[in-house]
């Protein structure tokens, strides 16, 4: 079975167009951190937010009238991936399309609002309009409705590895010959509450920059947005292998788990590029150790330095980044190691901050399959 990346789309703190964000990355730009407010009396948190201009062109739809930001990002990214693939869904083709949605914190803005009312003013104040939007699969439902998808729709939850796990699930689904394509979307929205939680977990830092592979690690900075990849039967970039992932019970077990996964993916061929999930936390040392041990000649790039840690969206962003690097045979600065001239293979590793880890290998073909 050959599954290819047929279309890519993203909504990021650096913008909402594929080429525009890529150009900014190539120019060495990083997103600007903004204050997320201090509504809970906690310390001020900074994060990378999606600028309104990034979704200004997104279509209006009745389903999005009350929807939270996460759904808007997901819809914009999903439609962009379809556009990039040149696919326009109709009833027939939508029936042969599946949707897999990756999410971690989900609709946290409405969830907070909904529960805040309950705590402050009692159950009688709870809003029946907000509650449905707090459900994990609400964004996927909106996107499916807008695209007219009537078959398989899955929402997968997890930590930062969930984007890659969603791609794995999509590959599982594509083993059904009745399916022509599967749209995989990872999305998050950012709120001070999420930052507070990660701060108490001692995983984020107060101010930029986010410095992957710094020793000692100085903490991540959170971001929001969405990434979308349309998997299909043809295209120039193949999902050559995708590992089902693993779990690590303690942080010091991450490197061993990652080693097992990477060994499976690199037995035959070494990657020319390693797109890492390094985010300024304990993850970085594990990825660095693996890279230097298994493929010391590969170029390494950590997109979170520019885009921030967007949990469920990050794994999809990393994969889009890897696909673009293979497509353009170039790497934005600052990459470590060699360049990417004639590079054919890119490894994407995605280590979550809460016990999940996953990885995949992309391959560029010179001809469309």
């Amino acid at each position, binding site marked *: 079975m050959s599954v290819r990346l047929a279309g890519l789309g993203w909504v990021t703190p650096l913008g909402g167009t594929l080429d525009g964000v890529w150009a900014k990355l190539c120019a060495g730009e990083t997103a600007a951190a903004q204050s997320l407010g201090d509504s809970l009396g906690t310390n001020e948190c900074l994060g990378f937010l999606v600028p309104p201009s990034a979704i200004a062109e997104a279509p209006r739809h009745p389903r999005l009238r009350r929807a939270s930001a996460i759904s808007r990002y997901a819809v914009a990214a999903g439609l962009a991936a379809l556009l990039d693939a040149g696919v326009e869904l109709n009833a027939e083709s939508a029936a042969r399309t599946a*949707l897999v949605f990756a999410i971690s914190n989900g609709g946290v803005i409405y969830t907070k609002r909904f529960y805040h009312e309950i705590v402050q003013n009692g*159950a009688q104040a709870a809003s029946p309009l907000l509650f449905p*939007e707090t459900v994990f699969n609400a964004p996927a439902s909106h996107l499916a409705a807008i695209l007219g998808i009537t078959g398989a*729709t899955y929402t997968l939850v997890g930590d930062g590895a969930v984007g890659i796990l969603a791609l794995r699930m999509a590959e*599982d689904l594509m083993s059904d010959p009745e399916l022509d394509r599967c749209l995989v979307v990872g999305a998050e929205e950012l709120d001070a509450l999420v930052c507070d939680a990660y701060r108490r977990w001692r995983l984020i830092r107060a101010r930029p920059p986010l410095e992957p592979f710094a020793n000692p690690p100085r903490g991540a900075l959170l971001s929001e947005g969405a990434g979308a990849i349309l998997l299909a039967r043809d295209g120039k970039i193949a999902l050559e292998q995708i590992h089902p992932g693993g*779990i690590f019970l303690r942080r010091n077990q991450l490197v061993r788990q990652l080693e097992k996964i990477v060994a499976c993916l690199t037995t035959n061929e070494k990657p020319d590029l390693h797109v890492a999930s390094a985010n300024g936390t304990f993850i970085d040392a594990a990825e660095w150790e693996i890279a230097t041990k298994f493929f010391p000649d590969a170029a390494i790039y950590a997109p979170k330095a520019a885009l921030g840690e967007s949990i469920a969206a990050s794994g999809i962003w990393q994969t889009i980044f890897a696909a673009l690097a293979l497509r353009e045979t170039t790497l934005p600065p600052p990459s470590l190691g060699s360049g990417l001239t004639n590079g054919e293979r890119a490894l994407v590793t995605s280590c979550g901050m809460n*016990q999940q880890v996953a990885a995949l290998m992309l391959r560029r073909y010179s001809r469309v399959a």
Partner: protein
Amino acid sequence: MAGLTHDPEKKTRARVAIVAAGVVSPLGAGLDATRDALREGRDCISPVTRFSVAECRCKTAGQVDDAWLAGVAPNDRKSRRLHRAARMLIVALRELLAQSPGFRPELTIIGTTSGGMSFGENYYRALLREKHPPRELAAWIANYPPQKPIVDALEACCLASPCQVIANACATGTNALGHAFNCIRTGRCERILAGGYDALSELVFVGFDSLQAATPEKCRPFDRDRTGLVLGEGAALFALENFEAAETRGAKILGEIIGYGISTDNHHLTQPNPSGIGPRQAMEGALRSAGLAPNDIDYVNAHGTATPFNDAAEGRAIADLLGCVPVSSTKAMMGHSLGAAGAIEAAITLLALRDRFLPANLNFRAADDDLDLDIVADQPRPAECARVALSNSFGFGGTNASIVLAAAA
């Protein structure tokens, strides 16, 4: 029983055996306790005790007895931080492993809707009300994510496997089983641990109450005068294995999953299309996948939430597609356990096939004039010939899932 329709294509796909199962729900802890409660037609709905429901319309739920969860883990610091959902999963997983001690899953696929939500609630309340938030704050955050209870349960039982955590609202338990079925059937995996879990939480309870989907009265699925659902909680897990591999190693086979269908109904975020098209497509898909004709189904364990919208759409779809087949919703007995519902109801369906009875649809007083259904009203029915059953789960977001189970030969 109607004869099974032969599907030549089916031969090329692997069969999927259920080699072990574990369950905890308001009906009891364990398959035998669950079967006993079902045979008695026991009403396990009780006043909510886990949080205040003073301001809610609905004040009852199906609750798992804390005594069943006590002692599942040692009384150390780490275990004290286990979420109640993790404890439920440990109970279910230990039962499963007692039946199949050597079962080592390559993959775990689990459904949930709210993960460790009550820890998130503790955290938020502490942030708002405490000047100096308690030390548990970081632990609540670390143990709140949906993958954490299943990872903790795996660790408690000395297992480790990658986890796919599906959150397809109330259909998710069935989606987890169905996706696992497909992964084994297509040869991508040989052994999968699959199921669902959810523990009651204030946010979700108040949410359903605010929608007026929850009823202050008795839960009466498919009844003419139904007024809504009551919530529940629990966990159920299944050890699924390639049939041939299970047979070769001499595993006891409890039954089979033989079909799975999934559909998405885009009518509304929280309401099904009244035509029943979503449930119908899921059931049709499950039959197609099983290679069965509608009259091959001997029993339907319905989603049957007792909301006016769900039961109308589902009842219409069942009547149109399957005709006069016995139908019951077991939610009147134990409540709607959301992410666990599909898995618990699959366990109930398996028990029905294994022990040859059809569970009762409690609190059924009067038939709905619009629904032509054979409801297994109030008392379980003997079913000596039941061999194949269908279990439905539908959820917010328009997700619909159906699986077909077959009795062990």
